[in-house]
């Protein structure tokens, strides 16, 4: 966990309202794991006050393999991300990370489904890339990308580029791929061949549907959730998440998550 002043390497429009930002970072990020996040101050001043959490989208490496930076994907949704969208190459920002519990990877070769809704694709590229580095057969990995409209679909080509053979596309309005929610094609694929694990990240209704479906078919499912977050390190306790079955205490997205076993939390 490092707090540091970093520089914007690039900040480019991915598609309407979505940006891809590269940041310099400490070389210790080589130990960062997929599913982990960073807390970024979007201004040096006090308004907006709080840091914003972003999943690590991927690590930027030199040709020799050393970590030279990291990339985040973000959607402009409010004051903080509007400020971020204004950043230019060379601007300084304050970065805190890497934080949180990552995805746990299968121990043996496994059939992996990856489900991403909208900006929920952010941690999934890092995950896929890491699976590939660990020797998993990425061509058997199936990626499901959903969004409201064709402009909310990100990174399809990036997945193909690292060797994923099947990327399923769905949109709510039918402007690209199939007009359905992302869980539609996932369930059909599950019926054809049960995967060993489903990784999911996206809006709450999508995670809820994915978790429910995974439970129905008894498939291990790990989900990365997004909540309001104050500190990112377990001090403010602002990011409470209900544990499955109620229980006498809350979990916290920043230190117990943001990746949870779907069965452990009450969405």
């Amino acid at each position: 966990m490092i707090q540091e002043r970093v520089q914007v390497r690039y900040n480019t429009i991915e598609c309407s309202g979505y940006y891809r930002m590269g940041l310099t970072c400490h070389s210790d990020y080589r130990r960062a794991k997929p599913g982990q996040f960073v807390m970024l101050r979007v201004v040096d001043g006090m308004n907006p006050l709080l840091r914003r959490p972003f999943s690590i989208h991927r690590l930027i490496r030199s040709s020799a393999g050393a970590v030279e930076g990291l990339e985040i994907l973000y959607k402009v949704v409010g004051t903080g991300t509007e400020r971020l969208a204004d950043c230019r190459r060379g601007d300084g920002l304050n970065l805190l990370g890497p934080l949180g519990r990552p995805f746990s990877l299968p121990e043996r070769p496994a059939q992996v489904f990856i489900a991403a809704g909208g900006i929920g694709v952010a941690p999934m590229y890092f995950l896929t890339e890491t699976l590939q580095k660990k020797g998993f057969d990425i061509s058997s990995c199936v990626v499901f990308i959903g969004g409201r409209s064709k402009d909310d679909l990100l990174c399809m080509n990036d997945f193909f580029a690292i060797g994923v053979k099947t990327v399923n596309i769905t949109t709510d309005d039918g402007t690209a791929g199939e007009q359905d929610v992302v869980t539609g094609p996932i369930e059909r694929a599950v019926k054809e061949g049960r995967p060993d694990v489903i990784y999911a990240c996206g809006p709450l209704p999508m995670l809820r549907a994915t978790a429910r479906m995974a439970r129905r078919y008894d498939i291990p499912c790990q989900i990365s959730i997004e909540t309001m977050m104050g500190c990112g390190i377990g001090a403010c306790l602002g990011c409470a998440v209900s544990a499955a079955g109620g229980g006498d205490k809350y979990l916290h997205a920043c230190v117990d998550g943001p990746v949870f076993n779907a069965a452990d939390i009450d969405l």
Partner: protein
Amino acid sequence: MAFESEATPDLTTNIAGVLLDNPVMTASGTFGYGREYSQLVDLNRLGAIVVKGLSLAPAKGNPPPRIAETPCGMLNAIGLENVGFDVFVEKKLPYLKTLSTPTWVNIYGKTIEEYSTLARRVDGVEGIAGIELNISCPNVKVGGVAFGVDEEMAFEVVRAVRQQTGRPLMVKLSPNVTDITRIAQSAVDAGADALSLINTITGMAIDIHRRRSKIANITGGLSGPAIKPVALRMVWQVAQMSSVPVVGIGGIATAEDALEFLIAGAAAVQIGTANFVDPGCAVRVVDGIRKYMIDHGIGRLTELIGTLET
């Protein structure tokens, strides 16, 4: 020798009989149990650590959403989620005892009996420098603030706790009152050794599209730079009438902020919400205060406290 003493000014300050190396404490509820920050902050450089508010039994806290951002500030209604006093002593305190920085425990109860029992328990534990008595949390339905907004109840609870403990006793005051000096006087009359203020200011924020409060508890406590002027005014008022040291809290994020509180009469300060934004804040405030003292030829912090010209 004169040069040397100017170069290394004396930042020590005495709060309720506890000598702090410097006047910068971390505020309860913003610094966990200390260890959360250990990878980011040299904890031995802090004046003191005040841990998350503790109750006798573990407390689950309020349902989410618990926080919302507001201009230059944030609202929270965490609801005093904590591990409970016994778990604190068993699991959290051993680490804090390895530090040279004194640990203050912030305690709260739902009844005077709970407050008393907790105070008695603290009295039997090594490694706790002092008690900060929370009579001012706005986010729990019973206890907490109920004691902090009524002079007689404040007096009763502080007196009851005082009878149970010989430990330094600091009472944390609520700003959600008409005249904070009257509650302050009650706490001092009942035996408080120090006063800390302010706790958060009750506030709200509404999501206009859903027509719901942005936090599940509906109301929450406002903190951050937005509240600093209010906090400073209250610290100044209380410092003028109080016979015990006052610890200033509220929106402090820079050494300049802290210096304002010291000049207004605070003998120490607490950094709260700024810890979330910038974990290195408290240590930078210490360095900034030292630099100010050197620049202004102030040898001892006590020469600065309460020196507001009026």
